[in-house]
């Protein structure tokens, strides 16, 4: 009797599902991922009349037909078709009923207990749309609740309605005669009329339920239908649904003619042929300013604060307790710095997530994608992938996380593999110090060149992946441009908070242990530390890019730079302390530039790696780290050897030739690997099927 009732919230994208979810569950929410995949699973609960109601918020879908749709849609469809929920709450936008009721008709066909929640009644009223709720409920054969979820209107009535479990009163929709015959012919073999209908429609879920014999019959029936009616079965079914919807709406809804809406007037400006692109770039610029400048300011405050508490504070406590050096390195310089690194991302990420949520909720994100789609297509990516690229110039961590807004997994992987090549703010700090020391006159050109090389490498990486492992076009574009909406502050803050929480837990879990390892290796941070010894051992590897053996601090700098790239300069300063500055230690401008090339392109920092792990699979993260380091080494070596060719032509030619050969060998391997069709081993098992 006291068993929990499971509710599933189902609806089209942009129907106000999240708002209703918040209104229903309040603070009692859990965020997590669906098993095995990186799609957010939101669930929560509320108590009504002594019964605990569990609510699962499903990703937005347009149809419950299972095809090779985007991952998050597939999760929603699978959940619905597996009939895991006791009641389905179907949320529809009352101001766009015709489109939204399509999914409703499909759910009614399934015969699941269903409550229809008409959301955005206020918007509908503003558009002069009047809906006869009673008539609509009778016509559809399911309870209907009127809501204005954004203002909390109607939510308690809906909760009441859910307690009296809705009965299933399925009314068959009138179908084309030929289709009806086919359904009846198939029903006895398939098990039910519903399954027969789904088979005719070509639903992958239904096809998994029946034997190959039945599938053969389905193909025959499909051919028969096409012969007699001239249309395919899926179109006939959709046509019947839309006819039913139109008839229902004609009986239950009255609407007066509406004037040009605010949305269409705004779109005339925002999507204007001349203004569209400047407005897009201005918005991206604002995003950048907001996240990097404002968030960056706050970051400094956070940085000083958390350094004081977690690094210096820990160190002081430990030294007072006479703790041994290794313990102090482990806890203060290791764990303390790790916590501090994680925390200092909060302002920048918070600002970015807030702005991104604003773009998404207001409806501009879809417009931005519309305007820039053509340019991004050249890179084999959809329009939305522009955001991570831009954000990457500030910091790669939020950039990788913002790739979440892309629907298809292929697009997400491709974007995330490309973003770390965007030179971030931390790398700019290194460039600034080096150019001041080595290129006092043309510093800006050097930095600009480095940025360009980063972008070129990103494009090259994207191209190589697209032509080997990640073949295929960007997912086809069927994007709704939702009406502009003034988002509620509560929803924006909640989105931001949830994404931030995800970052702190997942990324912190990787950043802190690695920081501890580095702290331990670094010891007192002098020439006697393990890290310094390791650096001395490794330096010969970097000889081909111009780092001499006595310049081992440069190697140590690269190693600590893995933690966070801005640390490179700090390390160099500590280790070079006796000598007179940077310029003594590198092989002039050529040596400095090849070092900068390496710094630009090598190993993404720990924090970026941590979010990559969160967004993708471990394999892709390791691939990215190896690929970037390889590209960095190759580029730096080829540059250095070419620039100093005259000094030692034979060995230079040897190096350039072998790096080039290795590069092509790797590409050839990648193509061979892709041709072997081993994609499955790269994508995690749960996401490949």
């Amino acid at each position: 009797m006291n068993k929990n009732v499971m509710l599933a919230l189902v609806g089209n994208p942009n129907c106000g599902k999240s708002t209703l979810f918040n209104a229903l569950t309040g603070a009692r929410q859990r965020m997590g991922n669906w098993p095995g995949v990186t799609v957010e699973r939101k669930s929560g609960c509320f108590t009504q009349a002594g019964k605990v109601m569990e609510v699962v918020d499903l990703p937005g879908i347009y149809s419950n037909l299972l095809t090779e749709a985007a991952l998050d849609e597939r999760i929603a469809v699978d959940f619905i078709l597996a009939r895991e929920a006791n009641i389905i709450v179907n949320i529809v936008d009352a101001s766009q009923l015709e489109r939204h009721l399509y999914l409703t008709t499909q759910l009614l066909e399934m015969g699941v207990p269903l409550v229809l929640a008409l959301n955005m009644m206020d918007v509908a009223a503003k558009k002069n749309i009047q809906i006869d709720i009673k008539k609509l409920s009778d016509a559809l054969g399911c309870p209907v609740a009127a809501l204005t979820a954004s203002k909390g209107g109607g939510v308690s009535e809906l909760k009441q309605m859910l307690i009296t479990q809705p009965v299933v009163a399925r009314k068959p929709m009138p179908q084309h005669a030929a289709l009806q015959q086919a359904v009846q012919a198939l029903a006895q073999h398939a098990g039910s009329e519903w399954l027969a209908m789904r088979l005719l429609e070509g639903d992958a879920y239904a096809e998994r339920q029946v034997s190959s014999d039945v599938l053969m019959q389905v193909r025959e029936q499909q051919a028969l239908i096409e012969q007699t009616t001239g249309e395919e079965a899926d179109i006939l079914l959709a046509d019947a649904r839309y006819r039913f919807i139109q008839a229902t709406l004609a009986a239950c809804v009255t609407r007066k003619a509406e004037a040009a809406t605010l949305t269409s007037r705004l779109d005339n400006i925002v999507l204007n042929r001349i203004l569209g692109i400047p407005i897009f770039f201005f918005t991206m610029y604002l995003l950048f300013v907001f996240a990097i400048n404002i968030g960056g300011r706050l970051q400094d405050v956070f940085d000083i604060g958390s350094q004081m508490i977690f690094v210096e504070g820990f160190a002081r406590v430990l030294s007072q307790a006479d703790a041994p050096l290794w313990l102090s390195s482990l806890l203060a310089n290791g764990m303390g710095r790790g916590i501090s690194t994680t925390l200092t991302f909060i302002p920048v990420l918070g600002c970015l997530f807030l702005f991104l949520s604003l773009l998404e909720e207001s409806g501009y994100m879809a417009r931005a994608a519309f305007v820039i789609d053509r340019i991004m297509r050249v890179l084999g990516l959809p329009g939305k992938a522009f955001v991570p690229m831009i954000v990457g110039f500030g910091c790669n961590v939020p950039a990788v996380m913002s790739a979440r807004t892309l629907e298809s997994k292929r697009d997400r992987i491709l974007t995330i593999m490309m973003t770390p090549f965007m030179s971030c703010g931390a790398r700019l700090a290194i460039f600034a110090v080096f150019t001041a020391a080595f290129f006092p006159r043309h510093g800006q050109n050097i930095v600009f060149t480095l940025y360009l090389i980063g972008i070129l490498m990103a494009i090259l990486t994207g191209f190589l992946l697209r032509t080997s492992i990640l073949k295929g076009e960007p997912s086809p574009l069927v994007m709704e441009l939702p009406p502009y909406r003034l988002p509620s502050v509560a929803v924006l803050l909640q989105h931001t908070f949830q994404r931030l929480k995800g970052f702190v837990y997942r990324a912190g879990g990787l950043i802190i242990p690695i920081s501890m390892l580095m702290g331990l290796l670094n010891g007192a941070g002098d020439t006697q530390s393990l890290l310094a010894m390791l650096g001395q051992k490794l330096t010969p590897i970097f000889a081909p890019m111009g780092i001499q053996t006595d310049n081992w601090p440069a190697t140590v700098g690269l190693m600590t730079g893995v933690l966070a790239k801005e640390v490179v300069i700090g390390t160099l300063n500590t280790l070079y302390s006796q000598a007179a500055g940077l310029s003594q230690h590198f092989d002039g401008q050529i040596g400095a530039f090849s070092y900068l090339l390496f710094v630009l392109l090598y190993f993404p920092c720990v924090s970026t790696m941590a979010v990559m792990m969160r967004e993708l699979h471990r394999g892709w993260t390791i691939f990215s780290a190896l690929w970037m380091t390889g590209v960095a080494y190759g580029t730096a070596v080829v540059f250095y050897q070419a620039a100093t060719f005259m000094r030692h032509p034979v060995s230079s030619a040897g190096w350039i030739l072998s790096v080039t050969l290795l590069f092509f060998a790797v590409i050839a391997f990648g193509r061979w690997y892709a041709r072997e069709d081993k994609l499955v081993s790269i994508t995690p098992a749960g996401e490949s099927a």
Partner: protein
Amino acid sequence: MQVSELKSGQKARVISLKSGDKSYRERLIALGLIPGTLFTVSRVAPLGDPIQILVRGIALSLRKAEASILQIECLT
């Protein structure tokens, strides 16, 4: 006739859908772009692609090349 041949502001009717990419086709069907449906081209993106159409009261954006699975007739 194909969607890519339409100009901004023109009205058209869907005649048929080719099979093409299955999930793309099913998405278009779910959004109501089925034979007999009327739609208007609201605008073309600043760089010439994609286009925005108004169908059954919703604004949709489609890429010209992908939308070529739609056979249409122009009404204006």
